[in-house]
């Protein structure tokens, strides 16, 4: 058995708690039953002792006083213990002992009292009477040789048993004791005589054993039921965990498309499954993106390599003129430059992705940055007959970040704006501040980007211009976005067909 399994541990806890509860419950029930039975024995002995005491020292109140417990037993006749059999009807009429009878004399018991101690059966109640001096003056024939109480008073069951019986009258000191299958009561009369009454409690003990057996049986049954139910419940409760674990194992084995089947989304495990599923989905998307990126990168590298291979194999095919060799070498150089740029871009992206590219955290003025960037590309714009318009609002607060990196982003946006502009068009650069955000926009008056391409322009290797004549590698905007993201900013694009495209960079202001 796997003791680390949640189910097993739950089960063990269930079992432990159940055993404790059942034990406590069963023990209490048994104690109550035992108290009840012994109380009955106690009161039986008490009643008999009372009769004996009365017989020993008849009250001056006259005959008919059956016992010390109060009430009026004389009217209805004395109560009889069922265990001692029916009362002897044939006895002579009730008659109290003679007046002034002393314990030293021959003791005569009233018949009903004597009937309580039928000596013919050793299992019946017995009595031993001692006088004030501790001399035994009478004992029933079935009394055991040794009385329990004087010799083994220390074995009294509990202090409770020693208290005077209720309604027994203050002067009667009494001790109740149980030993083995015998119970014995010692009653000291006010006159100083001692009355020992005893009897077997084997039937009561037998009954108690039966009760205990029943309690164990019922408790065991409940425990088994509880354990079975607990096992089932625990299984039910952790079944979603098994599902989750199985799915996670499949995903770990490489099948990223697997998802946890959701039967219920309200429970804690259901919510966990929902969270895990969305994590798996993001994981799969990230993997797919990475795969696509690697595939695109390989594809982008294949083309210049193909050019290199074709050019060199063609050139080596036969003797060439120096001019032809020169043309071949130049073509190879262009292909190599393209590969170099691509590799640099890929490395930059990889570093940005890994968060290894450390950004300076310096104050700079966005308007200055825009002006420098515009100056940098001005010759290119003029060569194409484009107007470069600057609307630079002086910033009330400096931006914080890596000005060199952001200048790289701006240069990329500006060269794109020049590249994809119409002849005699315009490139407009604006800066400003809006709600604690510095804003830089670069607009062109080109043909615009088709609406379906707009969401994808920041994707790696995505080119709205499918002809690849621009010489770009489709990574410029992706790198720009990564740099702006690293600054906690954002970059967006809007475009209107035939009117132009506007890129907006937002950066947080200190």
């Amino acid at each position, binding site marked *: 058995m796997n003791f680390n399994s949640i189910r097993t541990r739950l089960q063990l806890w269930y079992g432990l708690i159940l055993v404790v509860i059942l034990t406590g419950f069963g023990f209490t029930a048994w104690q109550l039953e035992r108290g009840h039975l012994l109380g009955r024995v106690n009161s039986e002995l008490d009643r008999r002792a009372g009769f004996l005491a009365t017989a020993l020292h008849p009250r001056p109140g006259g005959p008919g006083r059956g016992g010390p417990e109060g009430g009026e037993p004389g009217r209805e006749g004395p109560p009889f213990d069922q265990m001692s059999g029916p009362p002897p009807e044939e006895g002579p009429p009730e008659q109290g002992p003679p007046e002034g009878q002393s314990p030293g004399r021959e003791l005569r018991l009233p018949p009903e009292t004597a009937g309580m101690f039928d000596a013919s059966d050793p299992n019946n109640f017995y009595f031993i009477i001692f006088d004030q001096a501790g001399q035994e003056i009478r004992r029933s024939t079935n009394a055991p040789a040794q009385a329990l109480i004087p010799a083994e008073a220390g074995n009294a069951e509990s202090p409770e048993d020693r208290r005077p019986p209720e309604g027994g009258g203050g002067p009667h000191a009494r001790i109740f004791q149980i030993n083995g299958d015998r119970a014995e009561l010692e009653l000291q009369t006010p006159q100083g005589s001692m009355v020992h009454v005893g009897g077997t409690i084997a039937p009561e003990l037998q009954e108690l054993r039966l009760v205990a057996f029943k309690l164990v049986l019922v408790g065991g049954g409940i425990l088994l039921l509880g354990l079975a139910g607990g096992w089932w419940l625990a299984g039910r409760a952790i079944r979603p965990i098994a599902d989750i674990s199985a799915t996670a194992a499949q995903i770990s084995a490489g099948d990223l498309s697997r998802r946890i089947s959701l039967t219920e989304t309200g429970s804690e495990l259901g919510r966990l499954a929902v969270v895990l599923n969305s994590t798996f989905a993001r994981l799969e998307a990230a993997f797919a993106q990475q795969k696509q990126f690697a595939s695109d990168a*390989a*594809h982008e590298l*294949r083309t210049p390599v*193909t050019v290199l291979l*074709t050019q060199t194999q*063609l050139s080596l095919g036969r003797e060439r003129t120096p001019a032809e060799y020169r043309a071949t070498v130049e*073509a190879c150089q262009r*292909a190599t430059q393209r590969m170099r740029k691509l590799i640099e871009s890929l490395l930059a992206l990889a570093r940005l992705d890994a968060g290894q590219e450390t950004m300076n955290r310096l104050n700079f003025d966005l308007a200055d940055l825009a002006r420098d960037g515009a100056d940098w590309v001005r010759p290119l714009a003029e060569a194409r007959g484009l107007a470069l318009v600057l609307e630079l609002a002086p910033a009330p607060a400096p931006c914080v970040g890596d000005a060199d990196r952001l200048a790289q982003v701006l240069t990329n946006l500006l060269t794109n704006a020049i590249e994809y502009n119409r002849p005699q068009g315009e490139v407009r650069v604006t800066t400003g501040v809006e709600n604690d955000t510095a804003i830089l926009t670069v607009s062109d008056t080109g043909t615009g980007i088709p609406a379906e391409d707009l969401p994808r322009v920041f994707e790696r290797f995505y080119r709205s211009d*499918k002809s*690849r004549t621009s010489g770009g590698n489709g990574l410029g905007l992706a790198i720009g976005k990564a740099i702006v993201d690293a600054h906690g900013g954002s970059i967006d694009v809007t475009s209107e067909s035939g009117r132009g495209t506007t890129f907006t960079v937002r950066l947080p202001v200190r």
Partner: protein
Amino acid sequence: MRLLVIEDEPNLLASLAQALREEGYAVDTAADGEEGLFKAESVDYDAVILDVMLPVMNGWEVLTGLRKTKKTPVLMLTAKDQSRDRVKGLDTGADDYVVKPFDLAELFARLRALIRRNTHRTTNDIQIGSVGIDTGARTVTQDGKPVEITAREYALLEYLAVHRGEVVTRATLYEHLFGDDDDTLSNLLDVHVSNIRKKLGHDFISTRRGHGYCLE
């Protein structure tokens, strides 16, 4: 044999066209899918080399458009080397598939095989009487001895040999032996035919007046 190369990378297009011309093919070029499809539909090329990633129309669209009208053998050229891309290319109607970057020698061999299959031959060797033509090595022998022959003469001879027994018109010969960029003089064919007859015997190529030429 006349080929069309459709490829948008200018360096690659130029070097590929030059290499194929040096192999003796007449080569036309197209830099995008639309131009490529137009040329492929208007001329009976012996084979088309088609890049997949093309502006305006991609290679699949060109192939699908071309297959509506022509059975020209098409060799796809692509940087996508996944099996499903190759399957898609072949299923769309491409006859062969070469992954970039490729070896020129392999590309040429595949091209020869493509043209050979299209003319229902199984080997590169064609034997006509005492004349043997090796279309792989592009050599001609007579009685086992090599015959010196120019590239253009070889191309003319090969085309007639491949279509042996058929009367090949002058127009067809012009179409298959000269690319768009070649200067073609009206009597250029007659000069080449005359030179071949001098080298292999006057009766080797027969002239059908008003029709064209024929290799018996």
